[in-house]
């Protein structure tokens, strides 16, 4: 202890100036705590000033009650080194609520009073703390029976209407939207952004608020997507919080995450319906679900076409068998035509060769005439083919109907015998154009 000054001898009552007292306290404290001290405490009310100096409170809690508290500071040059070291090791920024192991000096300032000056930090301690807390949260979600709730929901066959929780400025959000809208299959995907803070102290509250907004319009969506990232890998601790994880687990729509990190899964990833690495992966997942559905449709379509064609082919064969009954009528109609054609062809060929023979000398000089003969022959062939075509047309059942024939059905069967029906039965008669439904009054059999 330094000698206390006695300024007024006359009163015999020594007193201090405040500055002298403070100086004395300072000296006493600093000599009592000459070295740096290793301290475990929780960060609270951390704020950094423009010059880069940081001020905070260090607290200790017991059952959520603060049982000790002290002002602290980190000077700018120390903070730069220390925060970088911390972020590299933990992937987190220093923030309120974190338990840290730090090296401090006890300082006392005549004007600003008592505070701890933080010199260094040991990130491994916080890392262990975070892992422990995360484990606790996971265990609690399990205990409460909600950890798998979101996983148990069924994702709609076609997740086409998506509520997006993200920040419009996040690179990951842009990637997500570009991927959805540029999908190569031409799928239309409706997505609506619920603007949220995706990092920092407010993120947890902001994301929970967005989830609640979506809950109010739940019928509009097939799924919720939580995406962030692109750039920084830090500040994911909000995704490990019990509150956010519990909200996601209990959410009535499937939640897909694309938080964009390479570290261990966050608790939110663990409880989500589906976890993707990046926002782009989320978009690809959605598109692949739609593609799977479309492939089912295409496969059904392919089978439908194939089988229907097969049935139609068989059916046509059956009809042509029936049509054979009319063949002789058709054939006789055609016969006269055919004979005439034949003689015409015969005559043409004969006539041609006669001309050729007669003009053999000229032909030798004008060989071009040969092709004229060939042309004539081909023309006659063409005429013959046209005749055949007509014959085929006449065989077509539709044309047979056109000529006044009809087909009679009893139920689904084509009738060939009047004995197949009795009085009062209903029959259908298919004409070229339309169907007549009638009731049988009587019939004349052949015998």
């Amino acid at each position, binding site marked *: 202890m330094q000698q206390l000054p006695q300024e007024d001898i006359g009163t015999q009552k020594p007193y201090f100036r405040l500055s002298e007292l403070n100086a004395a306290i300072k000296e006493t404290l600093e000599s009592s705590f000459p070295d740096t001290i290793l301290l475990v405490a929780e960060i609270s009310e951390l704020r950094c000033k423009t010059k880069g100096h940081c001020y905070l409170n260090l607290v200790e809690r017991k059952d959520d009650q603060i049982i000790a508290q002290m002002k602290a500071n980190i000077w700018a040059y120390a903070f730069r080194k220390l925060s970088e070291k911390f972020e590299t090791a933990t992937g987190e920024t220093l923030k309120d609520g974190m338990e840290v192991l730090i090296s401090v000096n006890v300082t006392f300032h005549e004007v600003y009073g008592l505070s701890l000056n933080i010199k260094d930090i040991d990130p491994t301690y916080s890392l262990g703390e975070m892992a422990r807390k995360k484990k606790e949260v996971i265990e609690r979600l399990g205990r409460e029976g909600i950890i798998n709730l979101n996983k148990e929901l069924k994702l709609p066959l076609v997740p086409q209407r998506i509520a997006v929780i993200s920040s419009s400025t996040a690179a990951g959000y842009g990637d997500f939207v570009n991927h959805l809208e540029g999908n190569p299959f031409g799928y239309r995907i409706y997505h609506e952004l619920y603007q949220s803070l995706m990092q920092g102290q407010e993120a947890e509250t902001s994301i929970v608020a967005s989830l609640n907004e979506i809950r109010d319009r739940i019928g509009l969506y097939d799924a919720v997507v939580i995406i962030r990232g692109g750039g920084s890998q830090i500040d994911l601790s909000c995704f490990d919080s019990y509150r956010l994880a519990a909200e996601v687990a209990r959410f009535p729509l499937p939640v897909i995450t694309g938080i964009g990190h390479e570290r261990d899964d966050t608790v939110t990833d663990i409880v989500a319906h589906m976890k993707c690495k990046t926002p782009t992966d989320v978009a690809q997942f959605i598109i692949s679900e739609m593609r799977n559905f479309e492939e089912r*449709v295409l496969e059904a379509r392919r089978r439908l076409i194939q089988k229907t064609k097969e049935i139609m082919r068989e059916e046509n064969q059956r009809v042509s068998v029936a049509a054979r009954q009319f063949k002789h009528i058709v054939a006789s109609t055609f016969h006269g035509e055919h004979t005439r054609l034949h003689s015409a062809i015969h005559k043409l060929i004969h006539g041609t060769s006669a001309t050729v023979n007669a003009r053999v000398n000229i032909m030798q000089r004008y060989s071009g005439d040969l092709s004229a003969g060939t042309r004539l022959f081909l023309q006659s062939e063409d005429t013959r083919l046209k005749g055949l075509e007509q014959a085929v047309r006449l065989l077509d059942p539709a044309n047979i109907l056109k000529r006044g024939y009809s087909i009679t059905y009893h139920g689904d069967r084509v009738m060939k015998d009047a004995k197949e029906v009795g009085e009062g039965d209903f029959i259908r008669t298919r004409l070229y154009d339309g169907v007549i439904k009638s009731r049988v009054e009587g019939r004349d059999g052949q015998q």
Partner: protein
Amino acid sequence: MGNSELTYASAIEELETIVNEIESGEVDVDVLAAKVKRASELIKFCNERLKGTQAEVNKILVDLEEKEGEAGSGSEE
């Protein structure tokens, strides 16, 4: 059977049922035409929904919002 209540799930289910029926060979030829027509309607429905214009998707949303009725968070567009 109108299309107003069709969903992707009900459409694909109906479509696959029709195809299975036809493939089993139990479908009468007269009925076949009706079945094929229905199947192609279902295929068209799925395609139009998957690839429809944004306006169509929005319309679906508006319909849903109307259905929600008094939930009334109001349309945003």
